[in-house]
């Protein structure tokens, strides 16, 4: 058996039981089972955003992360795949869900395979997952799987939902196996803008050859004008 893969489930459902958590759990169970069948152990970490809720104001207002936030970020740093599940409220993704992802470093999730999942009380919210969540994750540069999951109340008695879960789970497992995120990190990470200490504190390389570093050490970023080579009087 090859090395195990790490799946992180981010659940923004706040009730207990929560249909959002139920959807996320179904998907993650399917991912694990598919992994098993393909000879790949997949370990799961669940981040229930309700638990980080008390730390959210500080994170939003002053980028001050408490212990639970720090643990959640650490789990995402190591994630090989993500299932991100949110309830839809008032025709929009739950504020808790968007807030959580908005305070993360821009480069924390680059290239990570992700299943998007949403639940709602009515099928009229069906496009929220593709129109709102997908664009948020496009900004975060995740590798979002083609099949989104959406479950309104009536979907829970429809076999088609399980079919979509299967599809999304398989897509996720294939992408997780591909090692895409790691290859991006290894080979083209420097082509993405990073702040020092970003990517959950793992971005600590310092490029001493950049234009700004030249400027920091007394050099110039000014481009020479034609006819005036640098240093000419």
């Amino acid at each position, binding site marked *: 058996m090859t090395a195990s893969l790490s799946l992180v489930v981010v659940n923004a459902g706040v009730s207990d039981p929560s249909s959002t958590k139920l959807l996320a759990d179904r998907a993650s169970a399917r991912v694990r089972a598919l992994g098993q069948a393909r000879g790949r152990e997949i370990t799961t970490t669940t981040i229930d955003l309700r638990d980080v809720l008390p*730390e959210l*104001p*500080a*994170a*939003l*207002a*002053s*980028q*001050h*992360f*408490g*212990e639970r936030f720090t643990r959640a970020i650490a789990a995402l740093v190591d994630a090989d795949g993500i299932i991100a599940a949110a309830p839809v409220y008032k025709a929009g993704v739950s504020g808790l869900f968007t807030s959580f992802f908005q305070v993360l470093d821009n480069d924390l999730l680059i290239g990570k395979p992700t299943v998007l999942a949403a639940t709602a009380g009515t099928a009229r919210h069906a496009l929220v997952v593709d129109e709102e969540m997908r664009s948020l994750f496009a900004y975060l540069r995740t590798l979002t799987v083609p099949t989104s999951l959406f479950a309104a109340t009536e979907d829970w008695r429809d076999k088609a939902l399980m079919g979509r879960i299967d599809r999304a789970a398989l897509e996720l497992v294939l992408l997780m196996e591909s090692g895409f995120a790691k290859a991006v990190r290894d080979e083209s990470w420097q082509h993405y803008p990073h*702040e*020092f*200490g970003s990517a959950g*504190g793992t971005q*600590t390389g*310092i490029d*001493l050859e*950049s234009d*700004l*570093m030249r*400027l*920091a*050490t*007394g050099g*110039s*970023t*000014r481009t020479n*004008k034609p006819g*005036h080579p640098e240093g*000419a*009087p």
Partner: protein
Amino acid sequence: MQFGIMSVSDITRDPISGVTPTEAERIANIVAIAVKAEEVGLDAFAIGEHHNPPFFSSSPTTLLAHVAALTERLIVTTSTTLITTNDPVRIAEEYAMLQHLSGGRMDLMLGRGNTAPVYPWFGQDIRQGLPLALENYNLLHRLWREDVVDWEGSFRTPLQGFTSVPRPLDDVPPFVWHGSIRTPEIAEQAAFYGNGYFANNIFWPKDHYKRLIDFYRQRFEHYGHGTAKQAIVGLGGQAFIGKTSQEAKAQFRPYFDEAPVYGHGPTMEEFSQTTPLSVGSVQEVIDKTLTFQETFGDYQRQLFLVDHAGMPVGMVLDQLELLGGEVVPVLRRELDKRRDPEAAEAPTHASLVKAKYGGAEPRQPRPNANRGDNVTGSSPYQDSDAEVTASYPAL
């Protein structure tokens, strides 16, 4: 090791009395606070720079010159001087003047400023903040070291044959700290020039601060200014000291809860646990402050934020009594014991003069008679080499 206080110059409503001080009151109070800092045995007083209400400190050198005139030992400094929106030429002139008037009892800390609207007020663009800061310091550095500067950059109008007056006291430039908490380029610049590096130490994660401080130390050594242990590091910090832990917490809580800097987010207890803030008894504040040295290594300057969030002046003066009378003497003793013999002393004008001249007399520049410009001919000072001529930059 130097200990002092830093103020951001906020004029904040006192949440207990409900009263917001007038600008006049707050300015008078800050002078009293600075004078008190010397009285209780602290070494340094730092003031911030802001250009919008509710702050008053738009003109740090004026305040600091006044404070210097009222004190005898205190080093006056900034936290920070805006290296982005100020013209580096004006910084060179104003701080050299302060250096003369204070008899060398000054230095300054440079920062970028993160208040976006301030940049356009001074014709700058915050998106260019970092290159602007780096370039401006490169110029400032030369203005204090070369009598006549020809210069051309990306942001400021070029200089031809410019002499910044007065020349620094004893022809020794003021010591410069570069303040930064997240920018490796600033740490690199501090290291390149052998200047000090200051981390505000208000927010953590401390691992993050430590990485940058370690990077600065390593680069300081790389550029040949001394060993990594000899690099000049300053740290901020925040403390509220009570006779007992409970008293401190009860007194400070209303101010903490209202303080804009905390963003009405974490509780005081959470914040105390995960940041350098200490709210507690004398011993608790001492213990927490000692962890800074354990984490970041020997350092040269510790500045505490003690006067913000609407705290009334009487309370701040009481805090200074406790800080200077009970906390700092213990910290001095403890840190002296722990200090690596290799670690540098905190820089002062006297130590910089000694480093430059040894025992010799410092240079005292006397200008030549006015000839209307410095562009043609030699240096405008009598002791300089008449053969060295200034030249026009290519424009």
